[in-house]
């Protein structure tokens, strides 16, 4: 009985190889169905994201599944193993359990503590469960990994604070306006970063109302995508008092948002706070603008500064998160040990039942003793012998040494004897 994981991830493997080994859901189904007929693999889950491809497998036999899993990868993608072998990592048993728990907790992610991975683990588990390629071992393992992932995020600050520029912009907006609820946004320029920031702001509840662009066609196209109105570069200033968040991302070589323009807008806004996100390089906003009361200006460096400070907080939580995952690994390993002890304990129970049946039928023959009473006595003897045994095995499953007890049981009571 063993657990294996074989995979590649963002740490070592270049994206060109990762994308070749990616399993889409359509590709996962046939592979998992194929695994169900496999002579050595009894259970399998495929976790495939943009940062990692991992095959989790269980076997009832005491052998390594490395060759089998490599062959699965090769066959599924039609790529020779030599191509990706240098980047492959493999873990067995306790290390495999630990790896999955760390992955689910976001400890192995590119951005520590990110939340998406937990959903991706859940989805991988769902697909495998749907295909019927998981059984007791991996079912329990993935169920536990989801719980660990959730626990780590609630009991530590591993996922606290935004760490990407668009999400930092949203976090800051929420620190000013609370939960975004229709806060109006104006965007100067239509760059890739501003589009990403707009998407994040919309997801958080803001409303994009104006897209300002020199090129009317492009501006209207972006405006249509976000349900916003296009404004020409010479007419946005009069609309500034109407918005709460201004994103600057033009390619202009000089600042387009001036001190006087914002000062006038603030007077018209009656000093309702204004949040300006300047993601343009060179900057779109004059640096003196931040000196105005109730105006909060953040340029790219400021946003990066917030992101890195949040990342520091996350990093400080790693030790506690690792402790939580290590404890969960021990719990799962103990459960596995107990699972391994099941056949021996079943044999011991059967042996005990035979002895009790023999002795009671022989000793109490013709005494006319009440059958109910005999059964009750048998039950009591059985409990007194079995309960301490179970307790010892349970205890040993946490401290190690289950096998020693099992071997002792088998040898002392000759449990291997077939008759």
């Amino acid at each position, binding site marked *: 009985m063993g657990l294996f994981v074989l995979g590649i991830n963002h740490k070592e493997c270049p994206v060109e190889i990762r994308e070749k080994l990616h399993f889409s859901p359509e590709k996962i189904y046939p592979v998992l169905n194929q695994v169900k007929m496999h002579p050595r693999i009894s259970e399998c889950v495929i976790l495939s994201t943009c940062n990692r491809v991992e095959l989790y497998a269980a076997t009832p036999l005491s052998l390594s599944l490395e060759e089998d899993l490599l062959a699965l990868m090769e066959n599924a993608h039609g790529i020779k193993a030599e191509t990706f072998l240098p980047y492959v990592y493999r873990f067995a048993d306790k290390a495999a359990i630990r790896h999955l728990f760390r992955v689910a907790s976001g400890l192995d992610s590119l951005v520590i503590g990110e939340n998406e991975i937990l959903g991706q683990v859940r989805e991988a588990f769902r697909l495998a469960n749907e295909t019927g390629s998981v059984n007791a071992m991996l079912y329990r393992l993935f169920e536990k990994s989801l719980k660990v992932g959730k626990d780590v995020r*609630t*009991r530590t600050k591993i996922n*606290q*604070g935004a760490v990407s520029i668009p999400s930092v912009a949203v976090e*800051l907006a*929420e*620190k*000013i*306006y*609370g939960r975004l609820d229709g806060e109006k946004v104006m965007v100067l320029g239509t760059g890739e970063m501003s589009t990403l920031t707009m998407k994040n702001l919309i997801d958080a509840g803001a409303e994009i109302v104006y897209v300002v662009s020199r090129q009317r066609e492009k501006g209207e196209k972006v405006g249509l995508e976000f349900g916003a109105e296009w404004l020409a570069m010479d007419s946005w200033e009069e609309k500034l008092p109407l918005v709460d968040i201004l994103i600057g991302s033009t390619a202009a070589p000089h600042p387009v948002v001036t001190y006087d323009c914002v000062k006038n807008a603030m007077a018209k806004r*009656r*000093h*309702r*706070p204004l949040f300006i996100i300047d993601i343009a390089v060179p900057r779109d906003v004059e640096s003196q603008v*931040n000196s105005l*009361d*109730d105006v*909060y200006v*953040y340029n790219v460096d*400021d946003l990066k*500064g*917030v992101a890195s*400070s*949040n990342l520091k*907080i996350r990093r400080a939580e790693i030790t506690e998160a690792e402790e939580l995952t290590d404890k969960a690994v021990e719990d799962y390993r103990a459960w596995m040990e107990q699972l391994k002890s099941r056949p021996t304990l079943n044999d011991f129970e059967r042996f005990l039942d035979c002895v009790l049946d023999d002795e009671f039928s022989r000793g109490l023959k013709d005494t006319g003793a009440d059958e109910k009473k005999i059964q009750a006595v048998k039950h009591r003897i059985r409990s007194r012998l079995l309960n301490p045994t179970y307790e010892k095995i349970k205890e040993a499953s946490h401290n190690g040494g289950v096998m020693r007890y099992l071997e002792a049981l088998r040898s002392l009571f000759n449990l291997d004897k077939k008759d």
Partner: protein
Amino acid sequence: MTLTLSQTLLTANVFFFGLAFFVHLASFYEKISLRGHSLALLCMRIGFLIGTFYFIAEAVRLGFFLPVVSASQAMAFFAWSLAFIYLTLIMSVQSESFGIILTPILTFFVAGALFMSGSDRIPDKALIEPVLLNPLFEIHIVGAFFAYANFALSFAAGILYLIQARELKLRHTGRFYHKLPSLEKLEKIIYQPLFWGVPLLGAAIFSGLVWSRLSFQATAIGNPKTLMTVITAILYTAILYFRYGRVVRGRKIIILNVIAFATVIFGFIGLQWIQNGAHYTMYLPK
């Protein structure tokens, strides 16, 4: 030394408010689990209940309820009204950072009440001037206390607003940035108590004037304390008008709110000290 029932209740009150402060502090600096805020809130609620028992016990013992007959009771009553407003009126916007500011204030006032309780001499009901037991005077006192408690809460929220605004302005995302609520939420905590405080202060001024007219055939309108209170009421009314009349909002108005509270402190404590006693005593027989 044996403690009276009142002193025992005040001691327990100090203990629970103090405990709430330490739990808030430990939670703020992450020395205890994330549920620290709830535990601190529970301590505060227990403290508040003990405070309520204290006033009931005192009213039963003395046969009247007038929390200004001694400095000890006045301090305890101010703390009680602060806790009452925090736990009831602004329950929805409670935050951990707010508790950390409020609980030491509560502890300070109740500890002061306990300290003074030994030397305070509360006169018997028979010796109390009958005019002080007039319901109008009680409305005046209770209204003023609750109004000032509302202003104190608004002031504390104003300070937190200025801290958070500064953090955002300086792009300093430290502990306060993470722990303090958004500016919008803090604004709510600033203005919500004012909605209660301004009418209550108005009621206190009006009932005080009517009471002095009925009791002494004189209105205390020229009294410095009354004048200061009227100025305070005008300032807070102006703040509400600026904010909700959409005249101006943001940092400047919050600073005005902080200044307005300075007039409360001056009117409540400063003048009392200058005048050597509560302002109503000038009408009482020497």
